[in-house]
Each structure stands twice: as C-alpha cells, then as structure tokens.
C-alpha cells in the first residue's frame, strides 16, 4: 500500500468532491434544503394522522370541549364495520368508482388513439378537451346542478330532444335511479381528459420501428393493434386508473355540490358520510376511526394494485 500524501487524498475523497468547496458542507446544505419540507409534512400531515389514530379510540366530541374523554378501545371500529348504512355508502362509492373508471378509460383511450393520428390542429383540440379537468370541482358541481334542472336545464333539454321524452319527466338529481348516474356523467365529463393525456403519452412512447417491423411481417392492422398498441399502452392506462381510483375514492367536492349525497343517501359517498359524522353530528372519535378505515382501505388497495402494475411493466 502506498502512503504518500497524494495517494491518501486520492482515496479518501472521491474525485468529484476533491476540490475546494467554500461555505457549508454538502451534508448540512442537504438538511437545510430538505428540512422545512419534512417539518411541514410532519406538522400538517403526519402529526394529524397520529392524532386521528389516537382520537379513534375515544368518544371525543369536538363541539363539547369540557366533556370527559373516555378511552373506549376498538368500539368505534366495531360499530363502523357492523353498521349496514356504511356498507350502503361503500356500495355507492364502488358504483361511482367502477363506472367512472370504465367510461373514462373507454372514452379516454379512444380519444387518445384518434388524436395520435396527428390530424391538423390536434394540439389545439386536445387543449380544449382538457379544459374541464382544470376547473374547480365544487364550482363545476354547482353549475351542473343548473344544467340538470328538470324543466329548464340544458342537459334535460338535449336528452329530451334526442329521445323525444318530456324534459320535465325525469329528474337527474331527484330520482333514486338516476342520481348515481348523474354524478358518473359529470365526473366522466371532467376527468376523461386526464386518462386521455396519459394514454396519449403511452401511445407516443411506442417507437415507429415496431410497427414497421410488424408491417414487414405482414401483420394486419387489427393484429398490430392488439399485439403492439394495447400491451404497450397498458402500463400507462393502469397508472391512469390508479390515479383516478385514488382521487375518486376521496371524492367529495363535486358530488357534495351536485347532489349533497341525496336523494336520501343514494349518492352519499364515503367522504360525504365521513363529513357528516365529523362536522355535522360532531362524533369526532367515531369519525376518526372511520377516517382510519378509509385510509387503510385506499392504501391497501393501492399497494396491491401497484404490485400488479409492476408485474405488467416487467413483462
């Protein structure tokens, strides 16, 4: 082993750091740069989460501060999981999730496929299609309420125009059968562009030479579509589904403005129900347990899904 000062310096410090750096060390700078972000997230995301866990084992009510808070163990959890009303909310949420994702994938992929034909002016039309997803969901929900009005609303008028029905004969927001579909329609209108953009990114990532090779092998267009296009876009599509799934599981603003959970509780998604428990009935402990259950559900489902996604990517 050589032991000249030059050798020692060369082995002790990697070449990139081997020059004179003035001021603070990199390690100190790294912590100064990351610190505030971590602190903010700890204070406003993690600390509240831990607090929620703690509250979920109590009978605390936030509107009665003086009252004694008792530790009641898992009773809140038991009550929620055995409550049949909450399963109805879960069903409403599942209906909403399934159909919004179904329509958004179907329409979103089709649009992306068409836009990828690179017709003249496609980027301008893409931008116009994207507009709804940039808007405030609460305000969107509010103005769709206007479009859904039975006698005067544009939606009813247009549907009546094409089906020949009387525009005041159906209430999109007032009927138990139609209300769950009314929220699916608005969410699809708003978020199809998101799925479309992700699919478009997927389609554009397929290199031309694959199709050229398929063409040389005389594969039909249909066969190319199913053996090249679909498998190559699938990881992107699954990613879009993941994002829409997480977002729609949390869905609150749009639906609360549109239907407020009604009629009855037909469109009362879990988030809306949670808001009722926490901020109208003020059952803070109970609502905390509910929140934890929802969080664990999303997290669990998302983790399983990501595993499946990674398998598809590896193929």
């Amino acid at each position, binding site marked *: 082993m050589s032991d000249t000062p030059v050798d020692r310096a060369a082995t002790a410090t990697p070449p990139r750091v081997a020059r004179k750096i003035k001021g603070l060390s990199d390690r100190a700078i790294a912590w100064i740069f990351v610190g505030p972000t971590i602190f903010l*997230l700890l204070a406003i995301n993690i600390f509240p989460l831990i607090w929620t866990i703690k509250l979920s084992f109590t009978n605390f009510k936030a509107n009665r501060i003086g009252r004694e808070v008792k530790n009641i163990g898992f009773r809140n959890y038991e009550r929620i999981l055995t409550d049949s009303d909450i399963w109805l909310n879960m069903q409403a949420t599942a209906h909403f999730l399934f159909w919004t994702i179904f329509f958004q994938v179907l329409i979103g992929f089709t649009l992306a496929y068409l836009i990828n034909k690179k017709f003249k002016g496609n980027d301008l039309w893409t931008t116009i299609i*994207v507009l709804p997803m940039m808007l405030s969901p*609460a305000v969107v929900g509010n103005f769709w309420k206007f479009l859904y009005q039975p006698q005067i609303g544009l939606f009813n008028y247009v549907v009546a125009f094409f089906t020949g029905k009387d525009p005041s004969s159906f209430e999109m927001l007032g009927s138990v059968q139609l209300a769950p579909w009314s929220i699916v329609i608005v969410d699809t209108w708003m978020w199809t562009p998101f799925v479309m953009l992700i699919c478009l990114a997927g389609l554009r990532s397929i290199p031309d030479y694959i199709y050229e090779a398929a063409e040389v092998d005389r594969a039909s267009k249909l066969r190319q579509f199913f053996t090249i296009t679909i498998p190559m876009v699938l990881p992107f599509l699954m990613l879009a589904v993941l994002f829409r799934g*997480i977002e729609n599981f949390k869905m609150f603003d749009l639906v609360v403005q549109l239907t407020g959970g009604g009629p009855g509780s037909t469109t009362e998604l879990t988030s809306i129900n949670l808001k009722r428990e926490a901020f109208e009935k003020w059952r803070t402990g109970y609502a905390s347990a509910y929140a934890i259950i929802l*969080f664990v559900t*999303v997290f669990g489902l998302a983790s399983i899904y990501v595993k499946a996604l990674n398998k598809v990517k590896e193929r």
Partner: protein
Amino acid sequence: MSSFSVTEPSDRSKWFAGTLVIVYALITMMPLAWIMLTGFKSPSDAISYPPKVVFEPTLEGYVNLFTTRTRQTEEYLEANPPETWYEEIVREYDMVIAGPSKFGERFMNSVIIGFGSTFLSIVLGTLAAYAFSRFKIPLADDLLFFILSTRMMPPIAVAIPIFLMYRTLGLSDTHLGMILLYTAVNISLAVWLLKGFIDEIPREYEEAALIDGYTRFQAFYKVVLPQAATGIASTAIFCLIFAWNEYAFAVLLTSGTAQTAPPFIPTIIGVGGLDWPAVAAGATIFLLPVMVFTILLRKHLLRGITFGAVRK
C-alpha cells in the same frame, strides 16, 4: 408528403379521427359555453323553456354578483334618480344598491391564498428537490415515498385533526392557516415534479461553477435555478390551480375572513331562490383565468400532467 411511411396514417383516417375529436371537443365545451351565456342573461331568460340561445344580453348577473340590493319605496326611487348604469339595471326591479357584496373579498382571498401557498410550495419544493436530486440523503427513497403517500389521505380525514389543531393555535379562518395547509398538500407533487426537472440538468454545470469558486448556494441560484425555470414555472401553475380550485378544506376550515371563492359561489342567493345568472357570472369570473392559463401555457401544462403521473 410524398414519401410513403407505414406509420403515417392515411389522409382518410386522419380526417375521420379529426372529425370525431372535434365533435367530442364541441360537446364537452357545451356546458362551459352555456354557463358563460347564462351569466349574461336576465333571471327570467335563464330559466325559460325551451332554453334560450338567442336573448338580449344584460349585465344584471354581474351587477347582482358584486352588489347587495334592497327594495325601496316608490317615493324614494322617484326622489333619487339612478346615477350610474348599474343603478339603472337594478332600478328595473324597484331596488337600489345597498353596497358591495362579499364576492370581491372572497375572490381576493382566493388570490392571496393561491399565490401565497404556490410561492411557499415552490420555494420549499425547489430546495428539497435539489437536495434529493444532488445529495446522498439517507433513506431518500423512503422519504420520497412518504412525501407522496400523504396525498392518498381523503381531505376530510385530515381535516378532523387539522380543525382541532387550528382551533388551538388560532389558525382557523386565517390566510396563514390556509396557505400553510395548501402548501403541505401541494408540496409532495411539487417535490416530485421539480426533482424530475432538476435531474435533467447536467451536474457538470454546477461543478464547473464550484471550481470557479462559487459556493454551493451560489451555484444553486446562479446556475441551477435559471436552468430549472421552465420546470419551476409549470410546477407553480399546478400548485396554483390546485389551491385555486380546492373546496373541502376551505369549506370546513374557513367561514368568514379567509373564505375563498369556491365555497362562496354556490351560496349566492337571489330574490326567490338561486340567482342563476349571478351564480353563472361568479363561476365565469372564477373559471376564466384558469381556462386562459391552460390555453396559453398548454405545452408546459400538458407535459407536466403526463410527466408528473408517469414518473411516479
């Protein structure tokens, strides 16, 4: 194009695709166009059947949006002739303008909270993203995942303890409270997007600067920041749009001083039920900036959406 390519769609399929996409775009624009039209209708035109496409435009909705009005006796109305064009509009209903409505205030709250939280998210996010991109941070992947997973929580679930915490700290219904909250929500996306943009800047630039005698800080803001400017700008737009549109936290944690426009717009009530033209006018004023932004900055924005999602 004269050269034949198997991957270039034929003119006929382009024409077909173009037509379908344009038809979809027009249908998707109908609700938005309808709301903008409704803002210029009189209340009776707004609720007429069949829906009116041709009507006499009026600024009544906008006047109602920005003012509060009271009914007055005939003697009073005769003694005080209207002085301005907006007084004249209101006079048709035997009313006088009593004062400004809260819409202007709520709109300004949206502006203050939106820009405040965007600024904070970008400053903190850029620093963190730079550190994650350039330095070895212990458990970096876990930290990044942790930062991202905070977005999976339903807003209402987070709102319960934040409501309690803000009540104790006196942050409920304050601009500062909302700015901090929106920053906390936005920062995960900001760090992810910005890290991607900074990763793309070659390290050699800063290293050259360090050799020239710059400190790390100087290298950061004289070399890296200008290079990352486009990325920072498009991340800022995302943060701004989120804060601008947010409703769940706003409706639960603000009621007066710091209330933003989204919880306010649906509460605009006219004489005898909802004043749809005023609501439509409020929605138009509130949504239009975002739409203009989207169209002007479409290249960065669309890239940001796919980039942000696909990277994760």
